[in-house]
């Protein structure tokens, strides 16, 4: 009875959906290899705009922004993964406790509040407590909104691991620390990697919140790109965008593969 699952036109809609999602990305990737100075005319394949990204007049500005983006993303992903792991242990291996529902709501709060509202609230908070906006405020904001993204794959993975493994370890006189380090942590590995990678991309991609709390003179890659785009889309922006696109796709693919391998192994 394949018949009831088949609706005419649904395949066409799916193809349309994929085209809508991918064509704009492909267009920008193709035009980043355009040899012409004008973004309108196509004048043959060239890597000159990629060279321009690394050696051109804006190279230093983009280099600094890239460094800020990467270091913030690495620190924010690491810290939020640790916080999310602790939270997942309590939520999934902590039995029932008072405030469980409230904690669950709190973990998901960054996903519930519109980004622009998070940005406003965070800026007002930092200004009120007198923290100068800059690298540190960006980092604190990123750690906060990365937590739910790190939490999701870690909690999903932990739910799938039977508590019996740790119990066996405890029965054989392992301390709780040993049972965690030697038994649970290796099993949890794929979830941790996946959570870290997602948090990393989310941090790397953020524009709205960063733009509010970055302060003057401080740039991450997205805010630097935004600043340039406001003056018109130049070919070097397309090259930089294509590079970022590649990094995002690479990391999501890694996260996906790690997760899948973990699932078949468990």
């Amino acid at each position, binding site marked *: 009875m394949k018949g009831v699952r088949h*609706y005419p036109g649904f395949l066409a809609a799916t193809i349309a959906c994929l085209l809508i999602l991918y064509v704009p990305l492909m267009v*920008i990737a193709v035009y980043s290899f355009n040899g012409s100075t004008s973004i309108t005319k196509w004048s043959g394949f060239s890597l000159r705009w990629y060279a321009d990204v690394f050696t051109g007049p804006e190279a230093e500005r983009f280099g600094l922004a890239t460094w800020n983006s990467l270091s913030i993303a690495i620190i924010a992903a690491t810290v939020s993964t640790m916080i999310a792991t602790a939270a997942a242990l309590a939520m999934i291996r902590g039995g029932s406790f008072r405030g469980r529902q409230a904690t669950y709501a709190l973990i998901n709060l960054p996903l519930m509040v519109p980004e622009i509202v998070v940005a406003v609230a965070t800026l007002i*908070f930092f200004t009120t407590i007198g923290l100068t906006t800059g690298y540190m405020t960006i980092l604190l904001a990123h750690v*906060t909104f990365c937590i739910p993204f790190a939490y999701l794959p870690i909690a999903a993975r932990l739910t799938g691991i039977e508590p019996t493994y740790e119990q066996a370890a405890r029965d054989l006189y392992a301390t709780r620390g040993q049972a965690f380090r030697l038994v649970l942590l290796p099993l949890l590995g794929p979830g941790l990697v996946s959570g870290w990678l997602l948090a990393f991309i989310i941090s790397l991609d953020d524009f709205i919140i960063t733009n509010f709390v970055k302060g003057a003179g401080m740039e991450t890659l997205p805010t630097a790109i935004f600043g340039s785009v406001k003056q018109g889309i130049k070919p070097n922006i397309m090259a930089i965008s294509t590079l970022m696109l590649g990094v995002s796709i690479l990391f999501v693919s890694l996260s996906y593969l790690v997760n899948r391998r973990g699932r078949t192994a468990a």
Partner: protein
Amino acid sequence: MAAPVNSQSSGNQTYGELVNRLLLPTWLVIGCLLLIPVLLMTVYSFLTKEFRGGIEWNFTLAAYEQFFITRGLFGDEPPQIEWTYITIFWRSVWQAALATLLCLVIGFPTAWFIATRPARIRPVWLFLITIPYWVNLLIRTVSLRFILRDNGPLNEAMMALGVISDPLPILNTDLAVQIGLFYSYLPFMVLPIYAAVERFDFALSEAAADLYANRWQTLTQVVIPVVRPGIVAGCILVFIPALGAFLAPDLLGGAKNFMVGSLIDEQFRGSQGNWPFGAAVSVILMTLVLIALLVQARNASRGQA
């Protein structure tokens, strides 16, 4: 048989005594850096604005008054309803609702199609849908701005095909914003509907077909009522971020097609800003979102019953 049951229940409490210590970092970080800031923002919306973009700690309703009421250019006329900001909100709600509808029209068949593929191939299809979600939204919006320009690839292609003779001005219109919102949040619609359709018991469709329901009747009277929680979840996931969107209206809409996100952003830029007013607009936006979430929560609990 009591022993294994006992150890099973204690197994889920391995970290029972440590719960407070394990959750402390989460409460500290999200509590201090998001929950308290949101409350503080609400307080801010009742403060007095100072010149040069600062604030004074005097409580007033001025920000909300500015939003809803006008007293003329010099403030000496009888109070009337201020339509400027209500219009911006109305445009945002309208644009977000339309984007939600369009995402549903494309997203539902896509989710259905993927969910009815063989189990081995499904993850690949899903992966294809999720990739664009993880690609930087700024870059995706920039690429649309590039494509929709007067002499961009879209207009060039249409002119080459002879569909139009002069470039269509699409950029800096409501239409461009709509395309941007639809494109930005399309993956959000597919995923929850997919999850619902995947769990759908197709024996129900077969039963309907056996009872002489045609495809359309089966879809509208059997399938859609069952997968409705997934559809509602998808609509919420598109509607909420679209309502507060900043990049699409800013990069594609230009100055005339303001949405809430740009209105808020403007209040925090430079010395022209008005922080209490920006906070008040944020509070109003957050309230709208909260209402949407409550509707969804009620819907989800009804779906389970």
